[in-house]
């Protein structure tokens, strides 16, 4: 518990500015659902003798009604999401790519930051589950007219959506919404804080390729400072027992990173040595006004992933990138399109993982919310 608190504190310091609503919101995120759907009941009802040999006592429902971050999710919950996603991958291979599971549910995609991949991935996932979707984005919305987040949330809530998928530039915005809305909230990226579905789809991709997460050496290279993808992945990989080595120029490395459990290095060759998985992070040009490195070309020379550098990793290494890629900055085209790259598989898997998250959160709804 103490460990967790410590991690948490570090994590938020990383999130730094804008994390105002973070601390108060956290308990809400970790609040166990009063009655975890049928999960608790069902397993309580099974007679262990009847259940037979080799029966795994795995959980069948999440303990949370929001997905605000990876921090606070138990290993068994992560496993449940990944297992469920595996089954959903099949739905996307059918001729009729649609199941009626979330029929009559309304899901709002509330995207206050530009996003192509994540938003379309969520939208496709929602549509394949037969939910009704409403897209609400920055341009042309009342937010540009000066409405506060709380007012926007209240107005959204007044239309009785069942779930809200939120992307926001302020860390903690989803937590804030979770405190003020009855809908299930899904964090689709908040500031520098977390991007849980990205970490889940990364984990899913790794597991599909490697068969496991435990004991793998995962190198994460790139803009560690501004990356919510890093934080979510770090929490997830730590929980699942993988070893993470993080690499960036000192100017893009948050000081508390090593306290979060990652090994930190400033040399990419060192990070790549013997890696099973290499995750490249995007150099976020829109957040580079401080001049953390002189030029993109210098960054490429010192930290860009080239075919030559990949040779230091294990021969069966997989190369990942959450997108959008800056070719010739953090990653060379030859690597991005090369044999080790699973970058497009990540996108495909994203739909299945998001379907799983929506399905599991919807399932807990009535059993979960108190009255």
């Amino acid at each position, binding site marked *: 518990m103490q460990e967790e608190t410590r991690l948490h504190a570090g994590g938020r310091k990383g999130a730094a500015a804008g994390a105002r609503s973070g601390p108060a919101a956290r308990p809400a995120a970790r609040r166990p659902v009063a009655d975890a759907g049928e999960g608790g009941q069902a397993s309580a009802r099974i007679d262990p003798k*009847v259940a*037979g040999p*080799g029966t795994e006592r795995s959980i069948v429902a999440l303990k949370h009604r929001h997905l605000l971050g990876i921090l606070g999710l138990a290993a068994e919950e992560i496993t449940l999401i990944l297992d469920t996603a595996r*089954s*959903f991958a099949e739905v996307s291979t*059918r*001729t009729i790519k649609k199941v009626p599971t979330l029929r009559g549910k309304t899901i709002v995609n509330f995207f206050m930051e530009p996003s192509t991949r994540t938003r379309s991935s969520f939208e496709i996932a929602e549509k394949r589950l037969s939910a009704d979707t409403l897209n609400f984005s920055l341009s042309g919305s009342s937010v540009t007219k000066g409405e506060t987040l709380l007012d926007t949330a209240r107005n959204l809530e007044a239309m009785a959506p069942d779930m809200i998928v939120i992307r926001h530039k302020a860390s903690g915005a989803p937590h804030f919404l979770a405190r003020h809305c009855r809908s299930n909230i899904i964090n689709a990226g908040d500031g520098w804080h977390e991007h849980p579905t990205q970490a889940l789809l990364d984990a899913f991709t790794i597991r599909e390729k490697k068969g496991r997460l435990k004991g793998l050496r995962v190198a994460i290279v790139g803009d560690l400072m501004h990356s919510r993808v890093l934080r979510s992945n770090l929490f997830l990989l730590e929980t699942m027992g993988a070893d993470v080595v993080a690499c960036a120029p000192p100017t893009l490395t948050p000081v508390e990173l090593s306290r979060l459990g990652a090994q930190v290095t400033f040399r990419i060759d060192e990070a790549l040595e013997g890696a099973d998985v290499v995750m490249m992070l995007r150099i976020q040009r829109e957040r580079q006004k401080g001049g953390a490195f002189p030029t993109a070309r210098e960054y490429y020379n010192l930290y860009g992933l080239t075919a030559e550098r990949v040779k230091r990793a294990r021969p069966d290494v997989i190369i990942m990138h959450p997108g959008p890629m800056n070719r010739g900055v953090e990653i060379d085209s030859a690597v991005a399109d090369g044999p080790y790259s699973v970058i497009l598989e990540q996108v495909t898997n994203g739909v299945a993982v998001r379907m799983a998250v929506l399905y599991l959160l*919807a399932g807990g*709804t009535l059993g979960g919310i108190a009255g």
Partner: protein
Amino acid sequence: MDAEKIDRSLTRIAHEILERHRDVEKLVLVGIRTRGVPLSQRLQKKIAAIEGTELPLGVLDINLYRDDITSVGPSAILKETIIHFPIDDRKVILADDVLFTGRTIRAALDGLMDFGRPRSIELAVLVDRGHRELPIRADYVGKNVPTSLEEMVQVLLKEEDGRDEVLLVKRPEKKESRRSPAKAPVRAAR
């Protein structure tokens, strides 16, 4: 029901299926997870032994088609649906362990329709325990078991549970709603 009775029932059902369908080519088997799967595999073996033809076999997970998924929540981990053959114009034999309210079968029918337009669908179950809530009946029944709602029918199969047996047990006292509670624990016992 013990192992021998289960086996005899399945042998009889296999014969009944063949009796009713002369042209085996059009037949396909689809098992409903969890325990419909081993049952359909056994039927497949038996039909192969009698007729010398191995019927295509599919596996259907009905969780995504349940009518109570958003109210009750998942009762089992979602598993993959595997139907690798076209079911258009085929005669589908759907197999499950227990026929109770009929809601599982309703969900399975919806699920199958997403894979094509079969010529016909027939239902084979090991146990029919009555208490239907929907206009659904089985075409092939291993055993009809009159039950009360306070009872649960538990089908144990070697492939899932290590032994073959059908048990009728008293449902433990619970405050839960009476809607299909008896079946849920059996399916959840995975």
